[in-house]
């Protein structure tokens, strides 16, 4: 038997709590069973606290007996361009490995799960801060000698096990390991904890990796295009406030005479804006039968297990004012805003919405729906909507692109309480500075400025970026005493 020239190198990138250490142990046992010299290292440290970490293994694919007492010298750190099997338990970790040079077209089999676990930096953004998964998948297919990519977390959940078992199976199934399947399965058995589920996960991973083309992640069937949005909008507003309100929506859109792209953008935002989340809407959504079913599903309740749902509501002056007639509501808000008391009198309610009394309380609020058109909030929102639509109508003849940018500003107005106030302030500041009194006459430049300001408004919750961009402060916070 000829002695191979070098060790097989395996780098595993995982997150804390995914069983990366156990995976390394399995590989070591399997290598040991084959009498292959092997070594594993890791850098657990504080990385085990939810951070990204790596495990590095080397296996010399020749039985010790054939080596005549010679010991291979194995490295403790991976080298770029020198990794045979790159394993990533999550898609961005695969990207990180590629960025580090650990995936090379000559050598590397990349085994990676396609699911995402978002990093804090991605999920804390006010808009959408998620990294584009498509870019990672494309890069993986170009850079790896062979890429085995599928949603291994899903496989693990289906098998009732942890992702490490599926990863192990996928590694073995990829054909990149010098270890026979039996040795791998024996290693899982030897460890003896949750063996059956682990082996099930292993098999699932093995089979999918062996299949010539693992299933592509299905593209979500999202409807788009103006007509699809209009249909959705009509249905939503009918549900929100009846046929007449839906009719108002259509009237507003009709006045636009827009090109399809602008119409789609306005149809989408207008429907969302017109179905603004007031206390009546929230109460309505929280007490639907479909909601209780969804909660059961989300929390994984089994048949026959009662689920008690407690909602955290904290209505205050704004919520009260929103229900009052316009004149009264305006005065109350004005009074509270002047004294910095907008958030001073909120009442924290932990409502058992699933219980009889809690349900009746919340349902009772939902039954206020017929009153809505007479409320202060309704008047305020319709006024803002009209102002927004007028600006769009005005801009359309000048430039469709500009009109689209103005329409997209509706995205800033969302949320509740202070979040909502902040959104309104950003919206108003952008309108004031760039729509009503544009500093430039050129429509393209104006559109670009609006886009930039909108991104700035979503860059930080303190409004620092937007203030900087507009050159003046955006104020909505009550000052600290």
């Amino acid at each position: 038997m000829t002695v191979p020239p070098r060790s097989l190198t395996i780098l595993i990138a995982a997150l804390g709590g995914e069983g990366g250490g156990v995976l390394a142990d399995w590989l070591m046992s399997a290598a040991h069973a084959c009498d292959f010299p092997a070594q594993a290292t890791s850098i657990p440290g504080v990385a085990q606290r939810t951070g990204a970490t790596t495990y590095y293994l080397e296996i010399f694919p020749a039985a010790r007996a054939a080596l005549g007492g010679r010991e291979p010298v194995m490295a403790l750190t991976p080298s770029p361009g020198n990794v045979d099997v790159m394993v990533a338990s999550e898609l961005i970790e695969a990207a990180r490995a590629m960025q580090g040079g650990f995936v090379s077209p000559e050598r590397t089999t990349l085994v990676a799960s396609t699911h995402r676990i978002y990093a804090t930096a991605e999920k804390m953004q006010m808009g959408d801060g998620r990294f584009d998964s498509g870019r990672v998948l494309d890069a993986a297919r170009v850079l790896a000698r062979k890429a085995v990519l599928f949603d291994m977390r899903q496989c693990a959940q289906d098998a009732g096990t942890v992702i490490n078992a599926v990863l192990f199976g996928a590694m073995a199934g990829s054909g990149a390991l010098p270890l026979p399947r039996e040795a791998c399965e024996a290693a899982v058995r030897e460890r003896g904890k949750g063996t059956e589920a682990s082996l099930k996960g292993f098999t699932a991973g093995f089979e999918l990796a062996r299949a010539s083309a693992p299933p592509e992640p299905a593209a979500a069937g999202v409807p788009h295009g103006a007509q699809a949005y209009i249909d959705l909008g009509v249905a939503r507003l009918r549900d929100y406030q009846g046929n007449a309100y839906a009719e108002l929506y259509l009237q507003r859109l009709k006045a636009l005479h827009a090109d399809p792209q602008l119409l789609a953008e306005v149809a989408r935002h207008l429907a969302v804006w017109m179905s603004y989340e007031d206390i009546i809407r929230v109460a309505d959504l929280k007490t639907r039968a479909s909601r209780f079913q969804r909660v059961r599903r989300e929390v994984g309740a089994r048949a026959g297990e009662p689920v008690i749902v407690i909602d955290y509501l904290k209505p205050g002056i704004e919520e009260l004012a929103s229900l009052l007639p316009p004149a009264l509501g305006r005065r109350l808000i004005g009074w509270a805003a002047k004294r910095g008391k907008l958030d001073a009198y909120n009442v924290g309610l932990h409502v058992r919405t699933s219980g009889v009394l809690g349900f009746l309380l919340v349902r009772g609020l939902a039954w206020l729906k017929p009153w809505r058109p007479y409320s202060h909030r309704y008047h305020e929102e319709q006024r803002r909507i009209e102002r927004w639509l007028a600006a769009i109508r005005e801009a359309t003849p000048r430039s469709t692109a500009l009109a689209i940018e103005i329409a997209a500003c509706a995205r800033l107005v969302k949320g509740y309480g202070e979040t909502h106030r902040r959104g309104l302030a950003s919206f108003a500041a952008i309108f004031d500075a760039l729509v009503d009194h544009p500093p430039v006459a050129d429509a393209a430049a104006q559109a670009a400025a609006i886009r930039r300001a909108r991104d700035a408004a979503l860059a930080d919750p303190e409004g620092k970026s937007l203030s900087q961009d507009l050159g003046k402060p955006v104020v909505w916070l009550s000052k600290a005493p």
Partner: protein
Amino acid sequence: MERSFKEEVEQLRLGEGAIFRGEGILAVTKALLQSGVSYVGGYQGAPVSHLMDVLSDARDILDELGIHVETNASEAGAAAMLGASINYPVRGAVTFKSTVGTNVASDALSNLASAGVKGGALIVLGEDYGEGASIIQERSHAFAMKSQLWLLDPRPNLAKIVEMVEQGFELSEASNTPVMLELRIRACHVQGTFATRKNRAARYSKRAFLERPDFDFARISLPPATYAQEKHKIEVRWPAAVRFVRERHLNEVFAGKRSDVGIVCQGGLYNATIRALQQLGLADAFGATQVPIYCLNVTYPLVPEEIVAFCGGKRAVLIVEEGQPAYIEDAVLATLRRHAIEAVKVHGKDVLPMAGEYTGEAVVGGIARFLDCLQALQSITQPRNKARELLGAGLPARPPGFCTGCPERPVFAAMKLVEKDLGKYHVSADIGCHTFATLPPFEIGHTVLGYGLGLASNSAVHAMFGKRTVTIMGDGGFWHNGLTSGVANAVFNKGDGILLIMKNGYSAATGAQELPSSAQHSEHKAADMSIERALGGLGVKWMRTVHSYHVGEMRQTLKKAMTTPEAGLKVIIADGECQLERQRRLRPQVAAAIAQGRREVRVKYGVDEDTCTGDHSCIRLSGCPTLTVKDNPDPLRSDPVATVIEGCVGCGLCGENADAAVLCPSFYRAEIVQNPNAWDRFLARLRGLMHGTPVH
């Protein structure tokens, strides 16, 4: 404890010629037993936390050998314990992380090194340097030089590490000097094999007592003895050590046919050096090399004769020495000059990185530059450049953070809210899991000065502000140093700041080891040492204990502490058990209860996707791994909505935040009744009837 070694420690009993399979740290423990130690101790900290855990789990075996085991209260305590070897012929070993642990220990280490030892004294240093490190980046080498302690840096395979532990004790005794053995992070965790020898019971131990105290003024750190001790170090101990290293061939020369060049490397970097040569086609898989290598398993003291013999006659040598300053490179240069060997060009930091870990890539780059074969590096750079081009910028980093359900997270949420109420304020951070608060989304904490030193580091800052400042400290830091350097110091100097103590019950960041104030104590530790009583004893008057998860109450208490006219140190104890440990304890209990058919209520939080508007304020106030985002199910909206994924332990922070910060009404708490009783089922049916009511 986070990790149990109950099964692995059985290998510590292996006898002559058996094969040990396992982690580096466990191999070191076995080597200590083979060396006949009388006592062991240390202080937890990555990467040697596991060594302390192994010692705890191996108490039975150590008891059989009469070995005294101590979980020292700090590294200073551990180093001071080595004082047993000053007067008595007993071998002892302690472990801690370096360089922060070595810093804390250095007072005792200096005195120990000056007095010298009769019995072998070994310090196992977990070198927390490079990728995966959690501390400031410095070298342990400087400690060896300043105190004249010998420093071992073995080749990173288990057989060599074990051999160097054994040789280390002999070196220590032959030269009357304490010896440090440094193990890098990956070497601590390396899995491998070695042939064992049988354990040795020490001549003196818990089972075989010393006969009488031994007094010798020459070993006291007081002049004039100290003058003699310094001379003794240089005139007697140093030459003895150099002689021992030479005679035992502790450093190794690996011959190669390229006699014009050579590589001098630290033992710990030998494998990286061989791998680099292999990548350049200059070595095979078994370490047979074309370029001669002088491998320093002992990096201090160096052996001038060996350096001269290796370098003499060569055109150039490369020093592969990790970290800075380049002590070894400088020493080699000086040695060659002193021996009038001028022809050898000495390379090192000119071709290798000055600072940072010597990863495989760093070493191969340096050696390629040294041997002028840079074209061999293309296979490294090409895939990386291509990846950068394909992926573009903005790959999100994933630093470690608070665990799901961590009791410290709500405290920082409360601090964020106080910031909103009273404006920004200075926060002195400390070492521990809570240091993660300096990262997004909290970004709380202006300085970190060392373990338990948060409060002390705040004393001048506090004086410079017109309003009160806050110090964060963990219970680990409190017992390590904070009680004296922090609290006593602040009370003594009439400090007026606020100290927030995170009482999670364990040394959580290092793997949940027990602390003096831990609630559950193993039989080897004293129970009932309380932080509150210690504070009271020191004269702290303003003291409040708040349940960690009560965000609103914590916010009020902090505001009170900020504004109260009462002078003096104000201490708030945030009381909440480490959730990792809590879950580790509860999970089996709950599983057993459910299996027995007992009624159990499981709590999970969630977000209503149709009322969430995708602003993510909740995430900015939490950062919980299970509170994340998902595609908006509403086709009319584009921003992702918040969602609570699997793994939520129902700690309650989501609800507390929603309430305290008036976030939004989307959060709900679900109580799932497992094994419901008849009453539960009746209520569920009643409610079910109602939930179907139509909207209009």
